[in-house]
């Protein structure tokens, strides 16, 4: 996806990517990204949580406006489970 974002940006259309894999985004460097530390399959939020989905998208649009340095990643503050990162340990197990 980062490569598609780069091609579209080179073609003159501004892009914004929402990422849940920070290391891949750091490596491929799309022009503008927000990072959300959620399990894969929830890039724009939890199911049926309309408010969270809207917040993530609006934060992403804020980043579209604010990022001036190519390749910038803005970290979003949302946690999958408050104060509990057990899902990350399960992915890595």
């Amino acid at each position, binding site marked *: *996806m*980062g*490569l*598609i*974002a*780069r*091609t*579209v*940006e*080179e*073609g*003159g*259309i*501004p*892009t*914004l*990517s*929402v*990422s*849940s*894999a*920070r*290391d*891949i985004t750091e*490596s*491929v*460097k*799309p*022009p503008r990204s927000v*990072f959300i*530390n959620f*399990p*894969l*399959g*929830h*890039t*724009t*939020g*939890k*199911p*049926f949580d*309309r408010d969270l*989905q*809207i917040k993530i*998208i*609006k934060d*992403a*649009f804020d980043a*579209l*406006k604010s990022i*001036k340095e*190519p*390749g910038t990643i803005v*970290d979003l503050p949302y946690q999958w489970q408050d104060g509990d*990162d057990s899902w*990350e340990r399960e*992915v*890595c197990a």
Partner: protein
Amino acid sequence: MPSVKYIELTRAAFSSQGFPPYEWVVNKTAPFTPFEKNLKECRVSLLSSGGLYIRGKQEPFDPNKNDLTFREIPKDIDVGELAISHNNYDHADADSDVNCVFPIERFRELEKEGHIGELSPVNYTIMGRIFRLTALKNELAPQILSRLKVNHVDVFFLVPV
């Protein structure tokens, strides 16, 4: 901020399947087109790599890897018509609410409330896990760019899975 090391996980998975280690693209710089328009006047198009397609009307993706095709999803699609063909992420939640990976209903609401000018009449989906990088760069990406230009898209919003 701690986060899962997906590059290491993917390399380990490739090695365990007998493939050589996968080399990720490493870019030191990024292209940049300044965003100078008013978002409230912009046509925004959406791309997801979640493997969504219109059930019964479009071909499902090859759910394993290297499917270089894309699907066009009209803005007024009934999300109940969408299905997912993708073997590399747990899409149980996205099956019940596509907005987890393809937030088209939220974008329609943002159009209605005037946060964006409009959602593009055409939006896009692909299947991730494309390891044929030359074909991705030289075929799929330029095809999508040319569709965006035909549709006069001002902003492209990408949701990788």
